[in-house]
């Protein structure tokens, strides 16, 4: 069983040492530029010449390619097919699939969308691979993100695997009483119900206890919160952030200009 749901790979790299906010701004810079920069090959270039080298610099290339081949490329490929076949634009038909036509324009459009999605998910993947979630949240909380919001994000990441384990226990318990979980699709769909009840209501009861537990440790205290870990924020970080923000603005203005 997974102990927790986190992509974080603990390594020592330039990227790992960056302030979490800098990395978050970097992600938004990737998205901003990929979606607005008025050059057809921009997203693909970002992916090939910036994101992939960045994965190597961050020493997470193996984990990144694992995610890319299992998740990002299949998702983008599916999106590409859908857009290419269903976009009702263009005249020049490249190929046909029954009654669906892929035209030169729809293929070009599908390529743009897919490439943008690849850049977006890749940037987020790199962020998650190189940033410890609690570091990200404590840095954002320090900058004014409400503590409750940070708590919801982090505790969800931690509690999901626990709920998964509980669901397994409930399934096993119901099966031992003869619940059919292995026959036709309809029967299996029906057998979800006796699982959902105990899982959902059980979790609701737990929520009250957990609320009491964190309340007992001053969660709603009005005092200014402190943080156990100091998250370094250097001049380099601040400079990088400003450069990235300028890049985003530049990209957007170019888009509006042209």
């Amino acid at each position: 069983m997974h102990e927790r749901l986190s992509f974080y790979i603990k390594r020592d790299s330039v990227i790992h040492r960056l302030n979490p906010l800098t990395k978050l701004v970097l992600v938004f810079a990737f998205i901003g530029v990929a979606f607005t920069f008025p050059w057809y090959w921009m997203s693909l270039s970002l992916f090939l010449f910036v994101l992939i080298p960045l994965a190597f610099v961050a020493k997470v290339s193996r984990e990144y390619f694992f995610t890319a081949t299992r998740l990002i490329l299949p998702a983008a490929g599916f999106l590409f097919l859908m857009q290419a076949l269903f976009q009702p634009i263009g005249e020049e038909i490249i190929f046909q699939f029954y009654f669906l036509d892929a035209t030169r324009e729809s293929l070009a459009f599908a390529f743009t969308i897919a490439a943008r999605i690849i850049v977006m998910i890749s940037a987020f993947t790199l962020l998650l691979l190189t940033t410890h979630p609690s570091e990200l949240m404590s840095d954002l909380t320090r900058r004014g993100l409400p503590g409750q919001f940070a708590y919801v994000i982090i505790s969800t990441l931690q509690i999901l695997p626990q709920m998964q384990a509980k669901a397994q226990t409930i399934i096993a318990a119901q099966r031992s009483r003869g619940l059919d979980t292995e026959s036709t699709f309809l029967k299996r769909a029906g057998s979800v119900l006796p699982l959902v009840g105990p899982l959902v209501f059980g979790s609701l009861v737990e929520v009250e206890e957990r609320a009491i537990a964190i309340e007992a440790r001053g969660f709603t205290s009005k005092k200014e919160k402190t943080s156990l870990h100091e998250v370094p924020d250097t001049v380099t970080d601040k400079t990088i952030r400003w450069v990235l923000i300028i890049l985003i603005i530049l990209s957007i203005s170019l888009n509006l200009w042209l």
Partner: protein
Amino acid sequence: MALVNIQNLTYKYPLTKTPALQNINLQIEQGEFISVIGANGAGKSTLCYALAGFVPHFFKGEISGEIEVDGVASSKSTLDEWVVNVGLAFQNPFNQISGAKYTVFEEIAFGLENAGVPREQMQSRVEEAMKLTGISNLADRSPYSLSGGQQQRVALTSILVMQPKLLVLDEPTSQMDPIGTREVFSVIHNLTQSGMTVVMVEHKVEWIAHFATRVIALKDGSILTEGKPGDVLTSDVLTKNGFGVSRYTSVAREAKKQGLWKKEKLPVTLFEAAEGFNRNA
């Protein structure tokens, strides 16, 4: 002056007809180890919540009477101020893990972060608290990877680190195996030795007899009887009201009927029973 002073406390949960606590009067001195016993629905947990400020601040409902800890009245305080003085730990160790932290060390520091304790003090206070409960070796583990007994000690440490004046424990060992129970009890025993005031709901009569300084028996929201563990746990009042007694007490009571137990006082623990039967011989 007593650390805790409860005057005529009556409390009713929202949407219920009968009060969960009825006319409770209770004084607790600094350093006492009080054990609360009673059947399901007798008001044990409600009493714990009242001491910890969750009744009425969290559960709402109707309350009359007053609870004072260290001279401050609960009604004139808010929950986040109150929890600094009174620590609460309860039954299910799993639900007491905040879920917001990835290591035991961070988990224990969670309360200090909320209280705005400076980083420099945090480090040493967490280390000190972990030493007190003997979990220093777990510092870097994930709280979710621990056994129940370990998790319960983490939960206890997370409360202790906030240095409360009163520690309220609602059946902390009920889901533990014998080893977990012993771990938790030995921690609490050490704490009381160093002057901590503890109120603990517990059913394990022999452990109570060993460690508690006073026992309070609750029935239907009122205090049925209270006093020294040796007196309360062997009294006829308890048996008449359906409380469970230690197996040594029942054996000796039976033996007394047959003239085999000569002492006036009945035993609670194995040690007392052995000693008493030995004197007979």
